[in-house]
């Protein structure tokens, strides 16, 4: 027993010590409101909590002669009076009818605030009888007119109780402040400012109309935290976890690798060139990296322009539209790619792969790309340049010309990051994406150099690579783009 008392005393001292250091979390003149509506078959209960910070508490004590001590004789009568007075400011209506509120219970506590000065918390449970009958759904309107102009946390929640169910509600079912005892006040959480709610509910036919809820007063608790100073937490919390980042990077790398296998990229240049010129593994490495770097640079350039724009235009106005634009662009790209791949296998034959060779070395493969590897192998020796030494300059020029134009897939990665408002992270993702691309390109090059024979069996233009992979990716792109676009316009959608 003694030990228990010691613990209680120690806890109280701790509470006082923390209270001494901080003011009320919502500023020392705030008055916060909380209303928990519970709708039953026959009645509505309102758990109503008022949390007054130091200054309004002082004013209340001054005005009413209330003494800030829960055991003082002034507290109970004051609570009862205040509970009735506050009921005047609470409008609970169905149709034109205002439902009278009856006080079921009330409780007052005085948690210490700044410098141990008292703050005040009053909890009241009100009950209002619902009109009998009325099948179908009814709309209940709640309006809190108490202390409307004073700063504070203003929260309403609505739940269905016994014999009733909610059809629609403008108020959430769960609260954010644990009945005004735990305010998540930090840089990125603004206090809710809800003083009105509309709840549509229906009652189960033949529901028991006698259920009286256990009408204990709201369990009043002192504030869990004191001053709004959770910034460090916020940064730690809102940073995506290391696992998530790793997953995103891995995904981007894999996407890049897949992308390298898709037709229409610089890897064909690499392959053809290496095979044609009998290059070395070193050449394959250089060329793969050059393509990757130039490819990244192209995307970065576009990303940089967007990044710059987003920092010089008022972003709260720009971002939703940028997201919408990005989403629609991605979706349209997806559709275009899908259509092309779905119906345009032929097109692909004359597609990007076939003409990558154009350029620095001045030679042109005029043949279609079907069966490139066998083809080049068969005819490789006929090319006049076949035995010419491979210059670094030529390699770089070739890689740049093949990689500089940003490809749709990489843009999708960037635009997705953009729509998540994480441009910096997007740029890192592009690096991962390009690394994946490079790894596969270099691997293909090396394999071709050292195991050309083996590679001839790898039908790069087989139906899986040429058709289903692009079809799937373009379908995913379309859905992703539509998702982003819908999310962007969601805030303006009627709720």
């Amino acid at each position, binding site marked *: 027993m003694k030990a228990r008392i010691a613990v209680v005393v120690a806890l109280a001292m701790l509470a006082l010590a923390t209270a001494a250091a901080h003011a009320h979390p919502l500023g020392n003149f705030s008055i916060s409101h909380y209303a928990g509506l519970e709708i039953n078959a026959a009645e509505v209960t309102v758990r109503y909590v008022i949390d007054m910070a130091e*200054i309004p508490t002082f004013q209340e004590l001054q005005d009413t002669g209330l003494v800030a001590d829960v055991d003082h004789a002034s507290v109970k009568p004051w609570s009862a009076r205040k509970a009735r007075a506050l009921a005047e400011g609470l409008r609970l209506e169905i149709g034109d009818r205002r439902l009278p509120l009856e006080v079921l219970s009330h409780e007052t506590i005085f948690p210490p605030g700044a410098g141990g000065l008292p703050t005040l918390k009053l909890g009241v449970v009100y009950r209002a009888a619902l009109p009998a009958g009325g099948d179908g759904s009814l709309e209940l309107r709640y309006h809190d007119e108490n202390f409307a102009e004073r700063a504070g946390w203003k929260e309403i929640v609505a739940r269905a109780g016994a014999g009733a169910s909610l059809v629609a509600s403008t108020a959430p079912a769960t609260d954010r402040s644990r009945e005004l005892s735990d305010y998540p006040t930090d840089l990125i959480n603004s206090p809710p400012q809800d003083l009105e709610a509309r709840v549509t509910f229906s009652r189960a036919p033949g529901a028991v109309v006698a259920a009286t809820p256990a009408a204990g007063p709201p369990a009043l608790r002192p504030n869990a935290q004191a001053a709004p100073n959770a910034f460090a937490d916020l940064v730690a919390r809102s940073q995506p976890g290391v696992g998530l980042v790793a997953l995103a990077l891995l995904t981007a790398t894999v996407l890049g690798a897949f992308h390298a296998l898709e037709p229409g990229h610089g890897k064909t240049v690499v392959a053809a060139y290496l095979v044609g010129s009998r290059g070395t593994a070193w050449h394959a490495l250089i060329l793969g990296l050059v393509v990757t770097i130039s490819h990244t640079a192209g995307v970065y350039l576009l990303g940089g322009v967007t990044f710059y*724009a987003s920092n010089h235009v008022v972003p709260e106005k720009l*971002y939703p539209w940028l997201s919408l634009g*990005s989403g629609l662009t991605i979706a349209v790209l997806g559709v*275009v790619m899908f259509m092309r791949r779905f119906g345009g296998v032929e097109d692909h034959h*004359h597609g990007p792969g076939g003409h990558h060779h154009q350029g620095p070395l001045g030679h042109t493969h005029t043949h279609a790309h079907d069966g490139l590897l066998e083809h080049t192998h068969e005819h490789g020796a006929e090319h006049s340049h076949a035995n010419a030494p491979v210059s670094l300059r030529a390699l770089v020029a070739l890689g740049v010309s093949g990689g500089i134009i940003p490809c*749709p897939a990489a*843009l999708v990665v960037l635009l997705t990051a953009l729509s998540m408002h994480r441009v910096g992270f997007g740029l890192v993702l592009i690096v991962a994406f390009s690394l994946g691309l490079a790894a596969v390109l270099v691997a293909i090059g090396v394999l071709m150099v050292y195991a050309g024979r083996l590679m001839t069996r790898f039908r790069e233009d087989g139906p899986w690579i040429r058709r289903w992979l692009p079809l799937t990716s373009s379908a995913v792109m379309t859905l992703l783009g539509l998702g982003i676009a819908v999310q962007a316009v969601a805030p303006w959608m009627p709720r």
Partner: protein
Amino acid sequence: MSKHARLGGPARLILAGAALAFLVAGVVSAQERTTDQILRFHQSRVAADPDDPLAHNRLAAAYVRKARESGDLAYYALAEQAAQRGLDLVASGPAAATANTLLASVHVARHEFRQALSRARAALDLNPADLTPQAVAGDALVELGDYEEAARAYARLAPLTGPRHPTSRLAWLRFLQGDPPGAVALMRSAAATATTANPVGEPTAWTRAQLGALLFHTGELNGAEAAYRDALVAMPRYHVATAGLARVAAARGRLREAAEHYRKALDVVPLPDYAAALGDVYTRLGREPEARKQYALVEYIGRLSALNKTVYNRELALFLADHDLRLPEALELARKELEARRDIYTYDVLAWALYKNGQAHEAQAAMSEALRLGTQDARLLFHAGMIRRALGEPDAARAALARALALNPQFHVLHAPVAAGVLAELKAGR
């Protein structure tokens, strides 16, 4: 078909999409949003990208705006955290300059004027192209009593046009320099500019309320009332304007109406000067118990927290001196304030506290500092007159008191009658 042509299609699509987004963004930017909406947006930006210094700066700016609108000093702490985080992320360049400017304005709000000045100067070093920090530097210099340097800082802002031109700041400087009509004219122009930029919102309401305050100083009660009502049109329930209306009503002798307005202002933001003024109105009404409650509230707010003790220190010193409460403490608080700032109003409060403590000679020395710019403020001249009388200089006393009452015969609900009484006494004693 070349690769370039083929990839040109999607590239063009993307460019077209981006162009469309920018176009629509431009149209949408014409719409205004409330401070809470702006705040929520920037909160989401910071949550989405905790490493973006610009997002932190904008969040800090939104918090400064919220603090100004609500009068709740707690928001300055959040503004400081956000700006400091922005500065931690980028220590150089324009973004760091902006963060420093924001920190400087937070320091001004907290009455840490020297830190404000050094932050503003750091911002100017980091990004000489941006003149905004000059405004904050000027504000800090005004509070520090370095009016010439403040005028130079404001003068560097002269090339700016529109709401960024320091017209309202120059208006107050003009007032301090003893030219109330010039100040009113400048503030009228500032109010017109603010209205053109945005007819509603705190900036316009603030400028109109400042015009009301200047007009009150010149005794133009009708003009002051109109300006305060205009401010309430720009921002309903704006406590500064509501308190201004209370002051006008009190000056007209409509004490019940004044009490009503002060109560309304206190319901929104309980500032100690409002409570003190309401207490004075109750005193004039003979409602002593209610007056005492308001006076107790003044002290309670003034001592509530360390921040309140700094920000409301001078108010509390003046309050104690005005009401003959714990006068040695009033003097102590006034001397403490002089360490934070050496502007004419701090010298005035020091002079008044010295006078109340029976140190008329020291009071006179402080008062001459307070009047060094020739400011035409009835309160200052009332204090000067009372000190002169205590020194046995009836002519100087008479001149100062007459001047105070000529500026505004009802400059204060309690002090104006005192000034009139003493003046009559002095005239009779001649």
